[in-house]
């Protein structure tokens, strides 16, 4: 298995994958929406250019100090103390991506390593790791986070990201383990063992590249659940108070009793949360068709 043939093979697979992806309408819709949200997140970096009045957290309009509807000065209106809702929405997009992608990334790194180890080592290590995964997977993550917030006080956003990742890796590890188990029996692994490769080398050099596409597929689903959990946590009032996330915006609408009077405030964050979850999910399902070995005949690198 030379390096050149590996690379050509990989490029070939990517090209084929893209062709399949392009056929999928839902995937395209999902991708388009995600690009839109990404643009929102990027735009949030530029809001300071419009003046301190538009700061999502501390922006104060000298003329308005209560909730008002959409207008020229504030495209989506203002919240209960006169802050611009549109910039808050943009900021929320940034936080959603930040939280979603980092939590998902950490959880798939953990899940992949655990899955590969469990699948490859087998025996006691396997049993122990999978029991642990079962235990974590069964518990409702939001409630665990709530309890932790109660005991340890207000949680910082990065701590929330880490905790979400720690609660979410089991799902990935099961799939990776199953994949590793099938890969383990393949001739090229035997060949590597005969050639004297150490276990570490086999795991990271031979098994991991074949397992990674699956990891990344499941990353999209991890992103959705991470965003939802963070939003729910913020909604209940246990998010990071220094971050204006969409969940936090919903909390403000709810707690200040504006939910019936201010649709321009209630609707945008909720729609955004649901929509970004939907687009990641559609993207994930489209990628599933590209990557799932059950849905098409897949040739592993040999």
């Amino acid at each position: 298995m030379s390096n050149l043939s590996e690379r050509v093979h990989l490029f070939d697979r990517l090209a084929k994958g893209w062709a399949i992806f392009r056929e999928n309408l839902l995937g395209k819709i999902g991708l388009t929406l995600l690009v839109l949200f990404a643009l929102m997140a990027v735009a949030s970096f530029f809001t300071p250019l419009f003046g301190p009045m538009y700061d999502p957290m501390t922006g104060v309009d000298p003329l308005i100090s209560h909730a008002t509807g959409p207008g020229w000065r504030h495209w989506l209106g203002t919240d209960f103390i006169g802050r611009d809702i549109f910039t808050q929405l943009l900021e929320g997009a940034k936080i959603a991506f930040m939280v979603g992608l980092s939590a998902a990334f950490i959880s798939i790194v953990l899940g992949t390593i655990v899955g590969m180890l469990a699948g490859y080592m087998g025996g006691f290590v396997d049993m122990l790791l999978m029991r642990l995964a079962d235990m974590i997977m069964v518990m409702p993550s939001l409630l665990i986070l709530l309890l932790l917030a109660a005991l340890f006080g207000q949680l910082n956003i990065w701590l929330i990201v880490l905790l979400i990742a720690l609660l979410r890796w089991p799902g990935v590890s099961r799939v990776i383990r199953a994949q590793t188990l099938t890969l383990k029996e393949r001739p090229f692994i035997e060949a590597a063992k005969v050639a004297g490769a150490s276990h570490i080398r086999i795991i990271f050099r031979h098994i991991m590249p074949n397992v990674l596409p699956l990891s990344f597929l499941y990353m999209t689903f991890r992103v959705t659940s991470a965003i939802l959990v963070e939003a729910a946590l913020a909604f209940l009032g246990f998010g990071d108070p220094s971050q204006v996330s969409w969940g936090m915006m919903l909390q403000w609408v709810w707690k200040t009793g504006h939910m019936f009077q201010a649709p321009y405030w209630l609707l945008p964050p909720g729609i955004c949360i649901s929509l970004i979850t939907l687009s990641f999910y559609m993207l994930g399902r489209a990628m599933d068709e590209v990557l799932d070995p059950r849905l098409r005949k897949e040739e592993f690198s040999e």
Partner: protein
Amino acid sequence: MELRKFILRRLVEIGVIFFVILTVLFVLFRIAPGDPVARMVDPMWTPEDVQHVISQLGLDQPIWTQYLYYLKNFFGGNFGISFHYGEPVLDIIWKRLPNTILLFTTSTILAALAGVFLGKIAAWHKGRKSDTWMTLGALVCHTLFVPWFALMLVWILGYKVGWFPLNGIISPEVWVRGNSNFLVKGLDVIHHMLLPLMTLFVIQTGSYLLLMRSSMLGTLKEDYIVTARAKGLTEKAVRNHHAARNAALPVITSVGLSLAFSINGGALTETVFTWPGIGKELVFAVSNNDYPLAQACFLLIAAVVLTANLIVDVLYAYLDPRIRY
């Protein structure tokens, strides 16, 4: 015989998991910043009450003895006194549990039935307009943000149109007036339950529809479907009795697996609608720093989740003999 061994093994596993959770909670409550004693004993009580509860819960003992007290109290049903309500925690959660079970099981069963039924149809018509719309609808429903959707329903159906009450489980007027009979009271509860039920139902049906659809798509590729058709069975018979019956099995396990996620949604729904259930109590207890109540609610939910998983596993093993290893 095989089934009985399977059930026994699962019971033992679940018991171990619950034990671990109990212990982890014990440790967490003691390593959290602040005085661990203040976590079970409200400093606002009189010194005699404080001392009484401390000795009852064994909080003045060394850590190992405390652990034994903790276990003994747990199995004896003594969870301490709620700071917020001033009553024993056991009484409170005992009163709340039926509400949660009522809401949750009704919505899950209805959603599972609807999801399986619709998913079966969607998979059967794959590629056609009806399938595309159903799948898109299911995707949207599945990814709705629970508290937001709940707020929307309250706003539109409760506030604007006034068809449904805004919160709670009962209207005090109906229940306090002496002449209301059981039927009227029952209808009142149902009236209050419809909005939270709708919230959970819509979202869960979306998930189950998607599950059933993909499961069915896989089943339809199987050889026995070709055989059934070759035998001359009507399309309806093939769809319902051969494909759907087998496709429904993975959906059942998924009910168990997605239980954790559903419970998150359930707690959020209860909070928004102020439905007096365990989820809402947990959220409120955490907000009020009512540690004994929060701990008990959490343990109860954990127990319910584990039990539900056990039931689902046993049901699946009963229905599909292949997995009884």
